């Protein structure tokens, strides 16, 4: 599974990086950087991160 961020919608709230610290890091301004694909075992966390994004800016694709 791959995560992607709609950077126009994203406001850098940072919840995704809290839920998925191994996959998402924040840059110096607090915007998410996807540093790798979702590894096996973290799929549920990835779905949770998508669900919790207050801007609905995080997407998950197979």
């Amino acid at each position, binding site marked *: 599974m791959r995560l992607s961020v709609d950077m126009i919608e994203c406001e850098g709230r940072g919840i995704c990086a809290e839920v998925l610290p191994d996959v998402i890091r924040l840059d110096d301004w607090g*915007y998410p950087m996807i540093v790798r694909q979702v590894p096996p075992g973290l799929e549920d966390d990835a779905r949770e991160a998508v669900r919790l994004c207050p801007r609905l800016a995080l997407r998950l694709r197979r």
Partner: protein
Amino acid sequence: MRPASRPHANLADTTADRLPRLLPAYRGAGPLSLADHLDRYGPPPEIRGARTRDEVIGEVELAALAGRGGAGFPTARKLAAVAARRNAVVIGNGTEGEPVSAKDKVLMAQSPHLVLDGAAAAAGLVGATEAIVVAHAAVADLMAAAVAERRRARLERIRLSVVPAADAFVAGEASAVVHWLESRVPKPKSTPRRLSERGLHGRPTLVQNVETLAHLALITRYGAGWFRGVGTEREPGSMLVTLAGAVRVPGVYEVEIGTPIGAVLGLAGGAVGPLGGLLVGGYFGSWVDPALAVDLPLSSEGLGALGAGLGAGVLAALPADVCGLAEAARIARYLASESAGQCGPCVFGLDAIAGQLERLASGRGPDLVALRRWIGQVGRGRGACKHPDGTVAMVASALRTFSGEIDRHAAGWCCGVPGRTSALSPPYRPASPDPRMPRRWR
């Protein structure tokens, strides 16, 4: 359609290896009238029926035509993707927001009908009944007049129109052009689906640079074999280049792809003096060392050796007595100010990067560690468009090419505060005397 068995007499006589192909043979001619255009190139072939379309798209693939707007995407693949769908629309992109590039304006100002032929041919190839050319404001009236000329001659089977482009750097990005046409907002959009699937008002959309369309018009007339008569095996054809900065006769020239860069600069009379850097591609491009570049062929392959690309066909020469870091800082600041303001990394990142580059260029103790970290963070395909990526690539190339200057500058040596005036802004005299050309290109 079988491509015309032999080119139209006039161009056939001037054999395939003769340039120019796109621009009028005699410079300073002003826009070529429809009659002169048809006299030079012959009538455009009709493209009808799905089989004919597939054949011609196959011909474009054989020609290996690549987009001339900056990304260099294979045109045949774009055509095929849109042709597979119904209710398509074609957009000819003549926005040319790149400040140092003039080739699309000059092409439209001199050969408007070749661009329009290409737009009509593209429409035929993807089954569209409508083509819209978004033209830089300087040439929009002239293009509209050419469309009217064609209408009077009852040349067109499709609806052809011209819309003046927005005047902003990112306005030429494909999704921004669509956005501009839809709602007069010249900003890129988040496009979860490709424009070839869902573009203008949800319709499958082909967005193609106007120079690409002009080449397409010639391929549909004369075929891939003719097109490949110049250029390299991998990158056939000719291309328009804007030669700017410290060359004797800045302007737009048509060259064979693969011509040594030194010879290309020679078309503009060569450099006016020793050069300190060469900006290749445009503001989005790369700084390279002129000494390393002059013997390389002007092609994606040749420039790839220096980590650069063709971009929008710009070669801008920086005099040796102008600081490359200061020039790069000025461009970075310009690009930061041209952000559409939509994506965080672009808004904050480019401003921060430009700020550190300005500190570096003016000897005010930059934080080079932070600068390099931000370059790594911002240029990773994170924006809705490639504006941050292109800017960061330009900055990184400046740090590479002017690396010898960095230590001296970081130690406080200052060779001049980056100003608003660019050493790359050409005292430019284009071939066209058209008063509607923007002042800086006249």
